[in-house]
Protein backbone atom coordinates (compact mmCIF):
# COMPACT_ATOMS: atom_id res chain seq x y z
CA UNK A 1 0.00 0.00 0.00
CA UNK A 2 3.00 2.31 0.13
CA UNK A 3 3.31 4.52 -2.84
CA UNK A 4 5.63 7.04 -4.40
CA UNK A 5 4.06 10.44 -5.08
CA UNK A 6 3.66 11.02 -8.75
CA UNK A 7 3.90 7.35 -9.65
CA UNK A 8 0.87 5.14 -10.32
CA UNK A 9 -0.21 3.05 -7.38
CA UNK A 10 -1.30 -0.55 -7.52
CA UNK A 11 -3.30 -2.29 -4.82
CA UNK A 12 -5.63 -5.21 -4.48
CA UNK A 13 -9.01 -3.69 -3.83
CA UNK A 14 -12.40 -4.92 -2.79
CA UNK A 15 -15.75 -3.42 -3.69
CA UNK A 16 -18.08 -2.87 -0.78
CA UNK A 17 -21.60 -1.57 -1.14
CA UNK A 18 -23.17 -0.05 1.96
CA UNK A 19 -26.82 0.82 2.29
CA UNK A 20 -27.29 3.88 4.44
CA UNK A 21 -29.54 3.47 7.45
CA UNK A 22 -32.03 6.17 8.32
CA UNK A 23 -31.87 7.26 11.93
CA UNK A 24 -34.26 10.10 12.54
CA UNK A 25 -33.07 12.92 10.36
CA UNK A 26 -29.68 11.46 9.46
CA UNK A 27 -28.42 8.76 7.20
CA UNK A 28 -25.67 6.83 8.92
CA UNK A 29 -23.17 4.33 7.66
CA UNK A 30 -21.95 2.94 10.98
CA UNK A 31 -18.19 3.51 10.89
CA UNK A 32 -15.61 6.19 11.65
CA UNK A 33 -12.85 7.47 9.45
CA UNK A 34 -9.49 8.94 10.21
CA UNK A 35 -6.67 10.42 8.16
CA UNK A 36 -6.47 12.96 5.37
CA UNK A 37 -3.86 15.15 3.78
CA UNK A 38 -4.33 17.78 6.49
CA UNK A 39 -3.83 15.33 9.33
CA UNK A 40 -0.76 13.86 10.99
CA UNK A 41 0.02 10.52 9.33
CA UNK A 42 2.39 9.41 12.09
CA UNK A 43 -0.48 8.85 14.51
CA UNK A 44 -2.38 6.45 12.30
CA UNK A 45 -2.34 3.03 13.95
CA UNK A 46 -3.53 1.11 10.89
CA UNK A 47 -1.22 2.31 8.16
CA UNK A 48 1.88 0.38 7.19
CA UNK A 49 3.70 3.38 5.89
CA UNK A 50 3.59 6.20 8.40
CA UNK A 51 3.65 8.83 5.69
CA UNK A 52 0.45 7.54 4.16
CA UNK A 53 -2.18 10.27 4.36
CA UNK A 54 -5.07 8.23 3.06
CA UNK A 55 -8.45 7.71 4.68
CA UNK A 56 -8.66 4.70 6.98
CA UNK A 57 -11.54 3.04 8.77
CA UNK A 58 -10.90 3.48 12.49
CA UNK A 59 -14.02 2.05 14.09
CA UNK A 60 -17.01 -0.02 13.02
CA UNK A 61 -20.30 -0.04 14.86
CA UNK A 62 -21.14 -3.71 15.35
CA UNK A 63 -24.28 -4.62 13.53
CA UNK A 64 -24.35 -1.40 11.58
CA UNK A 65 -24.64 -1.07 7.81
CA UNK A 66 -20.84 -1.08 7.27
CA UNK A 67 -20.37 -4.15 9.41
CA UNK A 68 -23.09 -5.94 7.52
CA UNK A 69 -21.56 -4.99 4.20
CA UNK A 70 -18.20 -6.45 5.17
CA UNK A 71 -16.10 -3.38 6.02
CA UNK A 72 -13.28 -4.18 8.43
CA UNK A 73 -11.48 -1.89 10.84
CA UNK A 74 -8.17 -0.78 9.35
CA UNK A 75 -9.29 -0.70 5.73
CA UNK A 76 -8.02 2.05 3.54
CA UNK A 77 -10.71 3.66 1.43
CA UNK A 78 -9.54 4.34 -2.12
CA UNK A 79 -12.74 5.52 -3.78
CA UNK A 80 -16.26 6.49 -2.74
CA UNK A 81 -18.81 6.36 -5.49
CA UNK A 82 -16.03 6.96 -8.00
CA UNK A 83 -14.51 9.89 -6.16
CA UNK A 84 -10.88 9.52 -5.16
CA UNK A 85 -10.13 9.31 -1.45
CA UNK A 86 -6.36 8.98 -1.48
CA UNK A 87 -5.62 12.68 -1.74
CA UNK A 88 -8.41 14.43 0.12
CA UNK A 89 -8.68 16.38 3.31
CA UNK A 90 -10.50 14.86 6.26
CA UNK A 91 -13.47 17.12 5.83
CA UNK A 92 -13.76 16.43 2.09
CA UNK A 93 -13.82 12.71 2.85
CA UNK A 94 -16.55 13.16 5.40
CA UNK A 95 -18.63 15.18 2.92
CA UNK A 96 -18.25 12.59 0.18
CA UNK A 97 -19.54 9.89 2.48
CA UNK A 98 -22.44 11.79 3.97
CA UNK A 99 -24.23 13.18 0.94
CA UNK A 100 -27.91 13.41 1.85
CA UNK A 101 -29.12 12.60 -1.65
CA UNK A 102 -27.32 9.26 -1.86
CA UNK A 103 -28.74 6.15 -0.22
CA UNK A 104 -25.97 3.85 -1.24
CA UNK A 105 -22.22 4.24 -1.17
CA UNK A 106 -19.96 2.04 -3.20
CA UNK A 107 -16.51 1.90 -1.70
CA UNK A 108 -13.27 0.61 -3.06
CA UNK A 109 -11.18 -0.50 -0.09
CA UNK A 110 -7.90 -2.23 0.31
CA UNK A 111 -6.26 -4.10 3.14
CA UNK A 112 -3.15 -6.10 3.74
CA UNK A 113 -4.91 -9.43 3.95
CA UNK A 114 -6.22 -9.05 0.42
CA UNK A 115 -2.76 -9.05 -1.03
CA UNK A 116 -1.84 -12.11 0.97
CA UNK A 117 -4.96 -13.91 -0.21
CA UNK A 118 -4.20 -13.10 -3.83
CA UNK A 119 -0.62 -14.28 -3.47
CA UNK A 120 -1.74 -17.50 -1.85
CA UNK A 121 -4.31 -18.22 -4.54
CA UNK A 122 -1.75 -17.47 -7.25
CA UNK A 123 0.80 -19.81 -5.77
CA UNK A 124 -1.64 -22.71 -5.71
Amino acid at each position, binding site marked *: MSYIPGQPMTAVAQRIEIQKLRQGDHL*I*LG*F*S*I*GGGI*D*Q*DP*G*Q*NPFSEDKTDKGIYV*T*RITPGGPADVAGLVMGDKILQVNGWDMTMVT*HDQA*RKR*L*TKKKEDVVRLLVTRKSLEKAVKQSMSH
Partner: protein
Amino acid sequence: MDTESTYSGYSYYSGRSRGSHRHGERSRDRHKSRSKDSRSEKSVTINTPPAEPLLGDSSIRGEQVQDDNWGETTTAITGTSEHSLSQEDIVRITKDLEDSVGLDCRRYFTLTLAIILGLLVFLTPVAFLVLPHLLWPEKLQSCGTACEGLFISVAFKLLILLLAVWALFFRAPRAGLPRVFVFRTLLAVLVLLFVVSYWLFYGVRILDSQDPNYQGIVQYAVSLLRQLQPAFSVCVTRSTDGEKRHYNLGQISVQRAALAIIEHYYCDFPVHNPALLSASKSRAAKHLAGLKVYNVDGLAHSQSRAMIAAAARRRDSSHNELYYEEAEHERRVRKRRARLVVAVEEAFTHIKRMQEEEQKKAPGDVMDPREAAQAIFPSMARALQKYLRTTKQQHCHSMESIQQHLAFCITNNMTPKAFLESYLTAGPTLQYSRDHWLSRQWTLISEASVTSSLKDGMVFLLKCVDFSLVVTSRKIPYIQLSEEYIDPKSHKFVLRLQSETSV
Protein backbone atom coordinates in the same frame (compact mmCIF):
# COMPACT_ATOMS: atom_id res chain seq x y z
CA MET B 1 21.99 71.04 74.81
CA ASP B 2 19.92 73.97 73.85
CA THR B 3 21.36 74.35 70.45
CA GLU B 4 19.45 73.11 67.50
CA SER B 5 20.67 72.37 64.10
CA THR B 6 18.40 72.13 61.13
CA TYR B 7 19.30 71.27 57.61
CA SER B 8 17.56 73.91 55.65
CA GLY B 9 18.24 73.81 51.95
CA TYR B 10 19.96 70.46 52.32
CA SER B 11 18.65 68.92 49.17
CA TYR B 12 19.58 71.94 47.12
CA TYR B 13 23.14 71.88 48.18
CA SER B 14 23.80 68.19 48.04
CA GLY B 15 23.86 68.45 44.28
CA ARG B 16 26.47 71.10 44.52
CA SER B 17 28.64 69.03 46.73
CA ARG B 18 30.09 67.22 43.72
CA GLY B 19 31.24 70.45 42.29
CA SER B 20 32.69 71.60 45.52
CA HIS B 21 34.98 68.58 45.56
CA ARG B 22 38.07 70.59 45.72
CA HIS B 23 36.81 72.36 48.77
CA GLY B 24 36.60 69.04 50.47
CA GLU B 25 39.55 69.55 52.72
CA ARG B 26 38.49 72.98 53.76
CA SER B 27 34.91 72.01 54.37
CA ARG B 28 36.02 69.60 57.07
CA ASP B 29 37.65 72.41 58.95
CA ARG B 30 34.61 74.57 58.56
CA HIS B 31 32.39 71.90 60.03
CA LYS B 32 34.67 71.48 62.95
CA SER B 33 34.82 75.15 63.70
CA ARG B 34 31.06 75.48 63.45
CA SER B 35 30.34 72.65 65.78
CA LYS B 36 32.90 73.96 68.20
CA ASP B 37 30.78 77.01 68.46
CA SER B 38 27.63 75.11 69.05
CA ARG B 39 29.11 73.89 72.26
CA SER B 40 30.78 77.01 73.52
CA GLU B 41 28.14 79.57 72.60
CA LYS B 42 24.88 78.06 73.52
CA SER B 43 22.73 80.89 72.31
CA VAL B 44 23.72 80.63 68.65
CA THR B 45 21.46 78.77 66.26
CA ILE B 46 23.36 76.98 63.60
CA ASN B 47 21.33 76.85 60.50
CA THR B 48 23.83 75.99 57.81
CA PRO B 49 23.44 73.43 55.06
CA PRO B 50 26.29 70.89 54.89
CA ALA B 51 29.10 70.74 52.36
CA GLU B 52 29.27 74.43 52.03
CA PRO B 53 32.86 75.57 52.05
CA LEU B 54 33.56 79.07 53.13
CA LEU B 55 32.12 81.67 55.43
CA GLY B 56 32.72 84.15 52.68
CA ASP B 57 30.36 82.30 50.43
CA SER B 58 27.50 82.60 52.85
CA SER B 59 26.63 86.01 51.58
CA ILE B 60 26.24 84.70 48.05
CA ARG B 61 24.27 81.83 49.41
CA GLY B 62 22.01 84.19 51.25
CA GLU B 63 20.99 85.84 48.03
CA GLN B 64 20.33 82.59 46.25
CA VAL B 65 18.38 80.85 48.96
CA GLN B 66 16.41 83.87 50.21
CA ASP B 67 16.64 82.53 53.69
CA ASP B 68 15.13 85.06 55.99
CA ASN B 69 17.27 84.52 58.98
CA TRP B 70 20.58 84.16 57.26
CA GLY B 71 21.87 87.05 59.20
CA GLU B 72 21.53 85.10 62.39
CA THR B 73 23.46 82.18 61.11
CA THR B 74 26.84 83.78 60.64
CA THR B 75 29.06 82.37 63.29
CA ALA B 76 32.06 83.92 64.91
CA ILE B 77 35.01 81.70 65.51
CA THR B 78 35.95 82.16 69.13
CA GLY B 79 38.59 79.47 69.25
CA THR B 80 37.91 78.37 72.81
CA SER B 81 37.71 74.61 73.04
CA GLU B 82 39.70 73.00 70.31
CA HIS B 83 38.56 69.43 70.58
CA SER B 84 35.16 69.44 72.17
CA LEU B 85 32.67 67.64 70.04
CA SER B 86 29.47 66.04 71.23
CA GLN B 87 28.11 62.79 69.93
CA GLU B 88 25.57 64.49 67.71
CA ASP B 89 28.20 66.61 66.13
CA ILE B 90 30.31 63.61 65.31
CA VAL B 91 27.39 61.93 63.67
CA ARG B 92 26.63 65.02 61.70
CA ILE B 93 30.20 65.44 60.62
CA THR B 94 30.53 61.93 59.36
CA LYS B 95 27.29 62.25 57.46
CA ASP B 96 28.44 65.46 55.87
CA LEU B 97 31.81 64.04 55.05
CA GLU B 98 30.32 61.07 53.33
CA ASP B 99 28.07 63.20 51.24
CA SER B 100 30.61 65.74 50.24
CA VAL B 101 33.78 63.72 49.80
CA GLY B 102 32.64 60.15 50.16
CA LEU B 103 31.06 58.93 46.99
CA ASP B 104 33.43 59.57 44.14
CA CYS B 105 36.55 59.41 46.23
CA ARG B 106 35.76 56.00 47.62
CA ARG B 107 34.95 54.53 44.26
CA TYR B 108 38.13 55.72 42.66
CA PHE B 109 40.11 54.76 45.69
CA THR B 110 38.91 51.16 45.46
CA LEU B 111 39.51 51.10 41.75
CA THR B 112 43.04 52.44 42.06
CA LEU B 113 43.82 49.95 44.76
CA ALA B 114 42.50 47.16 42.61
CA ILE B 115 44.53 48.34 39.63
CA ILE B 116 47.69 48.51 41.69
CA LEU B 117 47.12 45.05 43.10
CA GLY B 118 46.33 43.62 39.71
CA LEU B 119 49.42 45.10 38.16
CA LEU B 120 51.52 43.85 41.04
CA VAL B 121 50.22 40.33 40.66
CA PHE B 122 50.72 40.44 36.95
CA LEU B 123 54.19 41.87 36.98
CA THR B 124 55.56 39.67 39.75
CA PRO B 125 56.33 36.61 37.66
CA VAL B 126 57.72 38.79 34.90
CA ALA B 127 59.95 40.54 37.39
CA PHE B 128 61.08 37.19 38.78
CA LEU B 129 62.26 36.21 35.36
CA VAL B 130 63.83 39.47 34.30
CA LEU B 131 65.68 40.52 37.44
CA PRO B 132 68.39 37.82 37.29
CA HIS B 133 69.25 38.93 33.79
CA LEU B 134 69.55 42.50 34.92
CA LEU B 135 71.39 42.01 38.16
CA TRP B 136 73.91 39.27 37.59
CA PRO B 137 73.99 38.39 33.91
CA GLU B 138 77.52 37.08 33.93
CA LYS B 139 76.91 34.43 36.56
CA LEU B 140 73.71 33.07 35.04
CA GLN B 141 73.64 29.63 33.41
CA SER B 142 72.11 29.59 29.96
CA CYS B 143 68.54 28.40 29.84
CA GLY B 144 68.09 24.92 28.34
CA THR B 145 65.16 23.70 26.27
CA ALA B 146 63.14 22.58 29.26
CA CYS B 147 63.50 26.00 30.73
CA GLU B 148 62.44 27.67 27.51
CA GLY B 149 59.35 25.49 27.45
CA LEU B 150 58.51 26.85 30.87
CA PHE B 151 58.64 30.34 29.44
CA ILE B 152 55.72 29.56 27.20
CA SER B 153 53.72 28.17 30.07
CA VAL B 154 54.47 31.28 32.09
CA ALA B 155 53.27 33.46 29.23
CA PHE B 156 49.96 31.67 28.92
CA LYS B 157 49.33 31.54 32.61
CA LEU B 158 50.01 35.23 32.82
CA LEU B 159 47.38 35.79 30.17
CA ILE B 160 44.83 33.81 32.12
CA LEU B 161 45.77 35.59 35.31
CA LEU B 162 45.33 38.93 33.59
CA LEU B 163 41.84 38.00 32.49
CA ALA B 164 40.94 36.74 35.95
CA VAL B 165 42.21 39.87 37.61
CA TRP B 166 40.30 42.00 35.16
CA ALA B 167 37.12 40.04 35.76
CA LEU B 168 37.44 40.27 39.48
CA PHE B 169 38.67 43.76 40.11
CA PHE B 170 38.45 46.00 37.13
CA ARG B 171 34.87 45.84 36.07
CA ALA B 172 33.08 49.00 37.05
CA PRO B 173 30.85 48.34 40.04
CA ARG B 174 27.21 48.82 39.30
CA ALA B 175 26.53 50.56 42.58
CA GLY B 176 28.35 51.94 45.52
CA LEU B 177 27.60 49.63 48.40
CA PRO B 178 27.41 50.98 51.94
CA ARG B 179 30.10 48.75 53.33
CA VAL B 180 33.31 47.61 51.78
CA PHE B 181 32.80 44.47 49.72
CA VAL B 182 34.20 41.97 52.17
CA PHE B 183 34.86 39.06 49.87
CA ARG B 184 36.71 41.13 47.37
CA THR B 185 38.75 42.79 50.04
CA LEU B 186 39.63 39.47 51.57
CA LEU B 187 40.64 38.13 48.20
CA ALA B 188 42.70 41.20 47.51
CA VAL B 189 44.39 40.92 50.90
CA LEU B 190 45.05 37.27 50.30
CA VAL B 191 46.53 37.92 46.91
CA LEU B 192 48.63 40.69 48.36
CA LEU B 193 49.96 38.47 51.10
CA PHE B 194 50.63 35.77 48.58
CA VAL B 195 52.58 38.07 46.33
CA VAL B 196 54.46 39.63 49.24
CA SER B 197 55.51 36.26 50.57
CA TYR B 198 56.65 35.17 47.14
CA TRP B 199 58.70 38.35 46.83
CA LEU B 200 60.19 37.86 50.27
CA PHE B 201 61.28 34.37 49.40
CA TYR B 202 62.58 35.55 46.10
CA GLY B 203 64.43 38.44 47.65
CA VAL B 204 66.09 36.37 50.30
CA ARG B 205 66.87 33.19 48.48
CA ILE B 206 67.47 34.31 44.96
CA LEU B 207 68.41 37.95 44.87
CA ASP B 208 70.67 37.82 47.87
CA SER B 209 72.45 34.65 46.98
CA GLN B 210 72.46 35.51 43.26
CA ASP B 211 71.40 32.05 42.32
CA PRO B 212 72.93 31.06 38.99
CA ASN B 213 70.42 28.29 38.40
CA TYR B 214 67.99 30.04 36.14
CA GLN B 215 65.77 27.05 35.60
CA GLY B 216 64.96 26.91 39.26
CA ILE B 217 63.97 30.55 39.15
CA VAL B 218 61.64 30.00 36.22
CA GLN B 219 60.02 27.06 37.93
CA TYR B 220 59.48 29.17 41.00
CA ALA B 221 57.74 31.80 38.90
CA VAL B 222 55.52 29.12 37.39
CA SER B 223 54.58 27.74 40.78
CA LEU B 224 53.10 31.09 41.75
CA LEU B 225 50.56 30.75 38.98
CA ARG B 226 49.62 27.13 39.63
CA GLN B 227 48.03 27.67 43.01
CA LEU B 228 45.40 29.98 41.70
CA GLN B 229 43.50 27.77 39.23
CA PRO B 230 41.03 25.09 40.33
CA ALA B 231 42.22 21.66 39.30
CA PHE B 232 40.69 19.13 41.67
CA SER B 233 37.25 18.40 42.96
CA VAL B 234 37.28 16.79 46.39
CA CYS B 235 34.40 14.84 47.87
CA VAL B 236 34.21 15.03 51.65
CA THR B 237 32.11 12.43 53.47
CA ARG B 238 31.48 12.29 57.18
CA SER B 239 31.92 8.77 58.49
CA THR B 240 29.11 8.76 61.06
CA ASP B 241 26.12 9.80 59.00
CA GLY B 242 27.34 10.01 55.41
CA GLU B 243 26.90 13.77 54.93
CA LYS B 244 28.64 14.63 51.71
CA ARG B 245 29.92 17.86 50.21
CA HIS B 246 32.02 18.70 47.18
CA TYR B 247 34.62 21.44 46.90
CA ASN B 248 36.94 22.70 44.20
CA LEU B 249 40.59 23.10 45.10
CA GLY B 250 43.67 24.08 43.19
CA GLN B 251 46.94 22.34 42.71
CA ILE B 252 47.93 22.33 46.36
CA SER B 253 49.53 19.96 48.80
CA VAL B 254 47.57 17.49 50.89
CA GLN B 255 47.96 19.36 54.14
CA ARG B 256 46.82 22.65 52.68
CA ALA B 257 43.86 20.89 51.13
CA ALA B 258 43.07 19.42 54.53
CA LEU B 259 43.14 22.87 56.08
CA ALA B 260 40.80 24.28 53.46
CA ILE B 261 38.44 21.36 53.93
CA ILE B 262 38.30 21.77 57.70
CA GLU B 263 37.45 25.42 57.31
CA HIS B 264 34.65 24.53 54.93
CA TYR B 265 33.48 21.78 57.25
CA TYR B 266 32.65 24.20 60.03
CA CYS B 267 30.31 26.25 57.91
CA ASP B 268 28.80 23.71 55.53
CA PHE B 269 28.21 20.48 57.41
CA PRO B 270 25.31 20.18 59.88
CA VAL B 271 26.51 19.77 63.41
CA HIS B 272 27.54 16.31 64.53
CA ASN B 273 24.79 14.94 66.78
CA PRO B 274 25.77 11.64 68.44
CA ALA B 275 22.24 11.17 69.80
CA LEU B 276 20.96 10.47 66.30
CA LEU B 277 23.23 7.47 65.84
CA SER B 278 22.05 5.52 68.86
CA ALA B 279 19.14 3.91 67.03
CA SER B 280 21.26 2.12 64.44
CA LYS B 281 23.74 1.04 67.10
CA SER B 282 21.02 -0.58 69.16
CA ARG B 283 19.76 -2.41 66.11
CA ALA B 284 23.22 -3.74 65.39
CA ALA B 285 23.57 -4.85 68.99
CA LYS B 286 20.32 -6.72 68.78
CA HIS B 287 21.51 -8.60 65.73
CA LEU B 288 24.58 -9.86 67.53
CA ALA B 289 22.80 -10.63 70.76
CA GLY B 290 20.25 -12.88 69.12
CA LEU B 291 22.73 -15.52 68.02
CA LYS B 292 24.68 -17.96 70.05
CA VAL B 293 27.33 -19.80 68.11
CA TYR B 294 29.17 -22.76 69.56
CA ASN B 295 32.55 -23.56 68.20
CA VAL B 296 32.63 -27.31 67.61
CA ASP B 297 35.43 -27.69 65.12
CA GLY B 298 37.85 -25.33 66.76
CA LEU B 299 38.45 -23.35 63.53
CA ALA B 300 38.12 -19.56 63.54
CA HIS B 301 36.97 -19.32 59.92
CA SER B 302 34.03 -21.62 60.23
CA GLN B 303 32.74 -19.75 63.24
CA SER B 304 32.37 -16.46 61.41
CA ARG B 305 30.88 -18.12 58.38
CA ALA B 306 28.47 -20.04 60.50
CA MET B 307 27.36 -16.84 62.18
CA ILE B 308 26.69 -15.13 58.90
CA ALA B 309 24.84 -18.14 57.55
CA ALA B 310 22.71 -18.39 60.66
CA ALA B 311 21.89 -14.72 60.54
CA ALA B 312 20.82 -15.01 56.92
CA ARG B 313 18.56 -17.94 57.64
CA ARG B 314 16.94 -16.48 60.71
CA ARG B 315 13.54 -15.11 59.97
CA ASP B 316 13.48 -11.87 61.83
CA SER B 317 11.06 -9.04 61.45
CA SER B 318 13.44 -6.28 62.40
CA HIS B 319 12.82 -4.51 59.13
CA ASN B 320 9.16 -4.41 59.97
CA GLU B 321 9.89 -2.93 63.37
CA LEU B 322 12.13 -0.32 61.82
CA TYR B 323 9.48 0.73 59.36
CA TYR B 324 6.75 1.18 61.90
CA GLU B 325 9.05 2.81 64.39
CA GLU B 326 10.21 5.35 61.86
CA ALA B 327 6.67 6.10 60.75
CA GLU B 328 5.61 6.60 64.34
CA HIS B 329 8.56 8.84 65.06
CA GLU B 330 7.87 10.92 61.98
CA ARG B 331 4.28 11.41 63.05
CA ARG B 332 5.28 12.40 66.55
CA VAL B 333 7.83 14.90 65.29
CA ARG B 334 5.31 16.50 62.97
CA LYS B 335 2.74 16.82 65.69
CA ARG B 336 5.17 18.40 68.13
CA ARG B 337 6.40 20.72 65.42
CA ALA B 338 2.86 21.90 64.70
CA ARG B 339 2.29 22.61 68.40
CA LEU B 340 5.58 24.47 68.58
CA VAL B 341 4.89 26.64 65.57
CA VAL B 342 1.50 27.64 66.91
CA ALA B 343 2.88 28.41 70.37
CA VAL B 344 5.68 30.56 69.00
CA GLU B 345 3.41 32.48 66.66
CA GLU B 346 1.06 33.19 69.50
CA ALA B 347 3.89 34.29 71.74
CA PHE B 348 5.18 36.72 69.16
CA THR B 349 1.82 38.42 68.92
CA HIS B 350 2.04 39.44 72.55
CA ILE B 351 4.84 41.92 71.99
CA LYS B 352 4.94 44.84 69.67
CA ARG B 353 7.71 47.20 68.79
CA MET B 354 6.99 50.63 70.17
CA GLN B 355 7.24 53.63 67.92
CA GLU B 356 9.19 56.67 69.01
CA GLU B 357 6.15 58.85 69.65
CA GLU B 358 4.50 56.18 71.77
CA GLN B 359 7.60 55.89 73.89
CA LYS B 360 7.14 59.39 75.19
CA LYS B 361 3.45 58.89 75.89
CA ALA B 362 3.51 55.66 77.89
CA PRO B 363 6.83 55.14 79.63
CA GLY B 364 5.36 52.66 82.05
CA ASP B 365 5.61 49.20 80.65
CA VAL B 366 8.52 49.61 78.28
CA MET B 367 10.97 46.70 78.08
CA ASP B 368 14.27 46.21 76.36
CA PRO B 369 14.68 43.17 74.08
CA ARG B 370 16.08 40.89 76.76
CA GLU B 371 13.19 41.55 79.10
CA ALA B 372 10.70 41.13 76.29
CA ALA B 373 12.27 37.78 75.45
CA GLN B 374 12.07 36.69 79.07
CA ALA B 375 8.44 37.75 79.20
CA ILE B 376 7.26 35.66 76.25
CA PHE B 377 9.62 32.75 76.69
CA PRO B 378 7.56 30.77 79.26
CA SER B 379 4.60 30.43 76.90
CA MET B 380 6.64 28.63 74.28
CA ALA B 381 9.21 26.97 76.51
CA ARG B 382 7.33 23.74 77.03
CA ALA B 383 6.51 23.19 73.38
CA LEU B 384 10.10 23.95 72.38
CA GLN B 385 11.52 21.67 75.03
CA LYS B 386 9.34 18.79 73.92
CA TYR B 387 10.22 19.29 70.29
CA LEU B 388 13.94 19.37 71.01
CA ARG B 389 13.64 16.20 73.04
CA THR B 390 11.84 14.40 70.25
CA THR B 391 14.45 15.39 67.68
CA LYS B 392 17.26 14.65 70.16
CA GLN B 393 18.65 18.17 69.99
CA GLN B 394 18.15 19.13 73.62
CA HIS B 395 21.85 19.10 74.48
CA CYS B 396 22.71 21.53 71.70
CA HIS B 397 20.60 24.38 73.03
CA SER B 398 20.69 25.68 76.57
CA MET B 399 17.88 27.80 77.95
CA GLU B 400 20.18 30.80 78.09
CA SER B 401 21.09 30.46 74.44
CA ILE B 402 17.43 30.14 73.47
CA GLN B 403 16.54 33.32 75.32
CA GLN B 404 19.48 35.10 73.77
CA HIS B 405 18.40 34.02 70.35
CA LEU B 406 14.86 35.13 71.06
CA ALA B 407 16.04 38.59 72.14
CA PHE B 408 18.17 38.77 69.02
CA CYS B 409 15.20 37.93 66.79
CA ILE B 410 12.98 40.45 68.52
CA THR B 411 15.56 43.19 68.13
CA ASN B 412 15.95 42.55 64.42
CA ASN B 413 12.25 42.36 63.63
CA MET B 414 12.33 38.72 62.68
CA THR B 415 9.20 36.65 62.22
CA PRO B 416 8.40 33.58 64.34
CA LYS B 417 9.37 31.40 61.41
CA ALA B 418 12.82 32.99 61.29
CA PHE B 419 13.22 32.41 65.01
CA LEU B 420 12.28 28.77 64.71
CA GLU B 421 14.48 28.02 61.75
CA SER B 422 17.56 27.40 63.86
CA TYR B 423 15.71 24.79 65.92
CA LEU B 424 13.81 23.00 63.20
CA THR B 425 16.84 22.15 61.10
CA ALA B 426 20.30 21.26 62.32
CA GLY B 427 22.62 24.09 61.35
CA PRO B 428 26.36 24.12 60.73
CA THR B 429 28.74 23.71 63.63
CA LEU B 430 29.53 27.42 63.75
CA GLN B 431 25.99 28.21 64.75
CA TYR B 432 26.25 26.54 68.14
CA SER B 433 28.09 27.56 71.27
CA ARG B 434 31.84 27.87 71.11
CA ASP B 435 32.69 24.83 73.19
CA HIS B 436 31.06 22.72 70.50
CA TRP B 437 33.75 23.52 68.03
CA LEU B 438 36.52 25.41 69.68
CA SER B 439 38.27 22.45 71.26
CA ARG B 440 38.75 20.51 68.09
CA GLN B 441 41.87 18.60 67.30
CA TRP B 442 42.19 17.12 63.86
CA THR B 443 44.53 14.40 62.68
CA LEU B 444 45.46 13.97 59.06
CA ILE B 445 45.81 10.32 58.03
CA SER B 446 47.20 9.82 54.57
CA GLU B 447 49.13 7.16 52.70
CA ALA B 448 50.92 9.65 50.49
CA SER B 449 53.23 12.25 51.94
CA VAL B 450 51.29 15.23 53.26
CA THR B 451 53.43 17.73 51.43
CA SER B 452 52.87 16.06 48.08
CA SER B 453 50.34 17.69 45.83
CA LEU B 454 46.84 16.36 45.23
CA LYS B 455 46.37 13.61 42.68
CA ASP B 456 43.39 11.99 41.03
CA GLY B 457 41.97 9.22 43.18
CA MET B 458 43.87 10.16 46.30
CA VAL B 459 42.10 9.36 49.56
CA PHE B 460 42.94 10.69 52.98
CA LEU B 461 41.24 10.94 56.35
CA LEU B 462 40.72 13.82 58.70
CA LYS B 463 40.15 12.28 62.08
CA CYS B 464 38.43 14.02 64.94
CA VAL B 465 37.53 12.69 68.38
CA ASP B 466 33.98 11.61 67.51
CA PHE B 467 34.09 11.02 63.79
CA SER B 468 36.27 11.26 60.74
CA LEU B 469 35.97 12.90 57.35
CA VAL B 470 36.85 10.77 54.35
CA VAL B 471 38.20 12.90 51.52
CA THR B 472 38.46 11.68 47.94
CA SER B 473 39.98 13.86 45.28
CA ARG B 474 39.14 13.72 41.62
CA LYS B 475 40.71 15.62 38.81
CA ILE B 476 38.41 18.07 37.09
CA PRO B 477 37.94 16.68 33.59
CA TYR B 478 39.05 18.48 30.52
CA ILE B 479 36.05 20.37 29.21
CA GLN B 480 35.59 20.87 25.51
CA LEU B 481 33.02 23.58 24.90
CA SER B 482 31.68 24.21 21.43
CA GLU B 483 29.32 26.86 20.17
CA GLU B 484 26.13 26.53 18.20
CA TYR B 485 24.17 29.43 16.85
CA ILE B 486 20.39 29.21 16.58
CA ASP B 487 18.65 31.94 14.64
CA PRO B 488 15.69 33.15 16.70
CA LYS B 489 13.63 33.26 13.51
CA SER B 490 14.06 29.53 13.06
CA HIS B 491 11.64 28.66 15.85
CA LYS B 492 8.58 27.59 13.86
CA PHE B 493 5.81 25.16 14.78
CA VAL B 494 3.03 23.25 13.03
CA LEU B 495 -0.12 21.76 14.40
CA ARG B 496 -0.38 17.98 14.25
CA LEU B 497 -3.96 16.75 14.20
CA GLN B 498 -5.53 13.38 14.05
CA SER B 499 -9.28 13.57 14.10
CA GLU B 500 -11.78 10.79 13.80
CA THR B 501 -15.26 11.38 12.36
CA SER B 502 -18.11 8.97 12.43
CA VAL B 503 -20.22 8.77 9.31
